């Protein structure tokens, strides 16, 4: 199966690989997937306490090229967005941007789930109610 140029570019030049200090109150961490499924994504956001805007985002991913690219792209999209805007990122936007084939759609679902998990972790830390998300359509 051939990967799209965008997937290949993210794979070879991933954006925002790294770790944020998860003990900080303004950092939200989402860890999704499982080793036995062949995909684990950890996505972190750091929120500016004054503006409520995501000022930094980092990821680490165990998975195939599409999973790495999906999380790398997600971190790029997250930066500069408000937390509420970030919650609206849809996995199909990732599919479209990266031109993922059907067998790789689960990678984008995982990235969306990671974003949501990071947002809820941040909300929980800050005494906010966790957002309820609809189940993603494709699992």
């Amino acid at each position, binding site marked *: 199966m051939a990967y799209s140029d965008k997937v290949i570019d993210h794979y070879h030049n991933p954006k925002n690989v790294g770790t944020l200090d998860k003990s900080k109150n303004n950092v939200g961490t989402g860890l999704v997937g499982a080793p*036995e499924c*062949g995909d684990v994504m950890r996505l972190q956001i750091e929120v500016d306490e004054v503006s409520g805007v995501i000022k930094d985002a980092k990821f680490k991913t165990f998975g195939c090229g599409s999973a790495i690219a999906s999380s790398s792209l997600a971190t790029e999209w997250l930066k500069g967005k408000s937390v509420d805007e970030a919650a609206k990122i849809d996995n199909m936007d990732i599919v479209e941007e990266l031109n993922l084939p059907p067998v790789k759609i689960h990678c984008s679902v995982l990235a969306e*789930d990671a974003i949501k998990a990071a947002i809820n972790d941040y909300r929980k830390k800050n005494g906010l109610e966790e957002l309820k998300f609809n189940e993603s359509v494709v699992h």
Partner: protein
Amino acid sequence: MLQLPIYLDHSATTPCDPRVVDAMLPYFTKNFGNAASRNHPFGWAAEEAVDYAREQVAKLVGCDPKEIIFTSGATESDNLALKGVFEMYASKGNHIITCNIEHKAVLDTCKHIEKEGGEVTYLKATENGLIDLAELEAAIKPTTILIAIMYANNEIGTVMPVKEISAIAKKHNVLFFTDATQAVGKIPVNVMSDGIDLMAFSAHKLYGPKGVGALYVRRKNPRVKVTAQIDGGGHERGMRSGTLNVTGIVGFGKACEICMNEMEEETKKLSVLRDKLQNALLKIEESYLNGDKDHKLPHVTNISFKYVEGEGLMMGFNKNIAVSSGSACTSASLEPSYVLKALGLGDDLAHSSLRFGLGRFTTEEQIDYTIEQVTNTVNKLREMSPLWEMFKEGIDLDTVEWAHH
């Protein structure tokens, strides 16, 4: 100059040796006859070529040329052996013993036979990819007609104790069939000294063309018969109808002859290169060899690199190096290799495996390059892996509650 890409997936298929192609060419154009045309020189030339190739093939595996049935490849040979014996020996019994790390061509055929009223015992491979001989013997019962155990495994390259298996089969008067696709032409295989009754193998794994293979069917002590699975003109002693693939068979014969002459030297060279690759990659932290380290083919190694995913790993160099992975991220099921799982590997290690298959034209320079590329990619991906970070922090990943998808 190092030429890229490098091919290290010889367990999947091999290139045709140029000498094989040269031998085949006249049979496409000048000598195009049908080997079954008995009444003119075109047919005679084709028949003569097939006879000669049959001798070349027979010589490599130590049998009589009459015992070679040409087929379209090992999958067909597996089908013919299993279904053919099941049908032919129905009055004796309906029980077949095989193993859970056989090729799908054997396993799926056994599943088919079960639907037809057969009974199949699937022995569990040991964790190093062999079978327990005591377990095999204990599985035999009065209705057992066939033991089907592969010669060498296609994913991990382990070589089964064939002589011991055939001795058990003989002792209990049960036929022994082996899929030797990965072994023939790579290591000495001799149906007489190995005590094999039926054996499947294929041309394209030994530098011959695709689309041609053989089933060895013993004619003496005991005389083995299989029920044909393809009806028609009664070719191949009635066991496999269909116009013979003369060009393919000529290439198969030539490929076998070359293996016969060069195997010993080639094996020596390849095992040195394989050991170099294997030792270097096993020096990487948290890398594990899959399969038995001693009982294995000289040109194959299968290694898991924990905390990186196999397909992601391959992507780091697959423009330049062709290998294959036990990961199945591309398949809809997302199931990793059933062979590695059967050895008791956790899904995490099965997802992290790469298979390297060296071949006739592999050079040391290619191996050096591969070592460098694989090592760099493993290191790079571990820097990106949350699992590696957790491992380094001393977190036991088995205690983590994963959000299962």
